[in-house]
């Protein structure tokens, strides 16, 4: 099914981000390991190529030097000057690895390999003597390593490695998108459905609420009053949901219309609005409110408070308490309900995430709160313990 992308679902969910991050981390690690491995092989291969290019020359030098050692062996000690050559430095070691004589500049000596690069960038060529002239079994030849091959190898590693990283990253994103598309499509579909249905809810809902308000409650019997009350609660619940859905699909795109909102009065108003809902579960509000002003869009601030109160009622126990504390720059709403597990707290702001299926709703309330909080650079903190309750703290 073709689903158009809604601006509201443009941003990824935290769980979606987490999946993407995990996949990309694994993918990048694997990719980097492969590139590092290939680079290592390439570097070693380049080193071998360099050795190969110098091996013949050094073998010739060694052959010449051995001939000179043979002459010296036969004339020693009358002649005791070690043979020198301007093209290379050399040293001789006996089979017990004892140095007989050395002109080498590097002291990095390795008897286990026939050619290597020292830590101070000298090429050492090791020739084993079959006849130990002057007692020497190992002849070391040393020439400087100009490092050109290394520079070229690193350049190629960086260029081709970099291109490979870019290429594989693009492929990775493509693959990740393929994986995430089904999930995203489902969310888009749900968004589209909600957007379409909310348009149809407004008129009937407004009519119900307006008519309930207009009913003269003194003229009706107690039994009917209860029924009207239930209708009122049901209508308000639907209204709350409608407001959230409308906000998600339409209003948050509207231009800001910020004003100084007196939060104490607003909370008192919203508590009164939700009181009828709270009473269905014998929930008591405990208010500790001080005058506080905040520069915000009144409707958005109302959405935040409504959703917090709605959740505090929904997830509270029967005969529970809702504590509301308002200070100059802080609002705290705490309930005595079922609470949330620590591990699940980071995901409560994800849209359509509901950890408790016993209560109704779409799981969009906290997602709306988070959006508004972020829009106004406020901070939200959730403290919760299962079976003890949840406290939401908003600071601005």
């Amino acid at each position, binding site marked *: 099914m073709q689903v158009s992308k809604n601006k509201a679902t443009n941003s990824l969910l935290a769980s979606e981000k987490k999946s993407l991050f995990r996949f990309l981390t694994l993918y990048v690690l694997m990719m980097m390991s492969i590139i590092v491995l290939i680079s290592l092989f390439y570097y070693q291969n380049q080193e071998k190529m360099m050795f190969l290019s110098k091996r013949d020359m050094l073998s010739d030098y060694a052959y010449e030097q051995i001939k000179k050692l043979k002459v010296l*062996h*036969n004339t*020693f*000690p009358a002649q*005791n*000057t*070690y043979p020198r050559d301007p093209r290379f430095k050399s040293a001789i070691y*006996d*089979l*017990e690895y*004892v*140095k*007989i*004589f050395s002109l080498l500049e590097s002291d990095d000596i390795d008897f286990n390999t026939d050619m290597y690069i020292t830590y101070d960038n000298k090429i050492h060529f090791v020739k084993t003597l079959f*006849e*130990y*002239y*002057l*007692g*020497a*079994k190992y002849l070391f030849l040393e020439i400087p390593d100009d490092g050109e091959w290394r520079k070229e190898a690193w350049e190629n590693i960086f260029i081709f490695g970099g291109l490979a990283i870019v290429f594989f990253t693009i492929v990775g994103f493509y693959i990740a998108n393929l994986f995430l598309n089904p999930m995203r499509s489902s969310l888009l579909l749900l968004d589209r459905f909600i957007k379409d249905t909310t348009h149809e809810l407004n008129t009937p809902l407004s009519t119900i609420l307006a008519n309930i308000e207009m009913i003269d409650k003194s003229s009706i019997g107690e039994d009917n009053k209860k029924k009207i009350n239930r209708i009122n609660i049901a209508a308000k619940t639907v209204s709350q949901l409608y407001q959230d859905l409308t906000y998600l699909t339409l209003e948050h795109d509207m231009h800001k219309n910020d004003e100084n909102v007196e939060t104490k009065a607003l909370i008192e108003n919203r508590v009164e609005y939700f009181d009828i809902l709270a009473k269905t579960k014998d929930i008591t509000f405990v208010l500790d409110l001080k005058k506080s002003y905040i520069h915000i869009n009144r409707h958005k601030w109302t959405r935040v408070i409504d959703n917090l109160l709605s959740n505090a009622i929904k997830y509270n126990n029967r005969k529970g308490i809702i504590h509301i504390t308002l200070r100059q720059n802080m609002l705290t709403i705490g309930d005595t309900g079922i609470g949330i597990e620590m591990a699940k707290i980071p995901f409560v702001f994800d849209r359509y995430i509901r950890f408790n299926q016993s209560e109704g709703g779409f799981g969009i309330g906290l997602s709306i709160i988070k959006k508004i909080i972020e829009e106004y650079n406020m901070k939200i903190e959730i403290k919760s313990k299962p079976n003890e309750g949840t406290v939401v703290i908003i600071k601005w």
Partner: protein
Amino acid sequence: MVRIFILLCAMVLSSHAADAYESNCIKCHALLPYSLRDIFMRYLAAYGGENNVKVGLDHYFKYPAKDISVMPIAFLNHYGIDHHSKIKEDELKKAIDIYWKKHKVIGRLK
């Protein structure tokens, strides 16, 4: 006093060892066309390191044989091989040590 005693002991021991080398080695080899230095260089070329050379010498003195000798075949055919050494073990060891020190290459190249 103790120092003088130790010094004297060392001198006696070293002169004794030098005697062993000179009386047991130089005396016989003086008659041969290959000098002790030539023979040393042949040992060195064949055995390499200090320990190897010393072990080689020691073994040859105890078990002289044509097939393990470092000397040329013509030399062996003409002069034959030496008899089994009758030098005492420690005396032989000291003589070999002196031989090594006298002719070694390490530390003498420039």
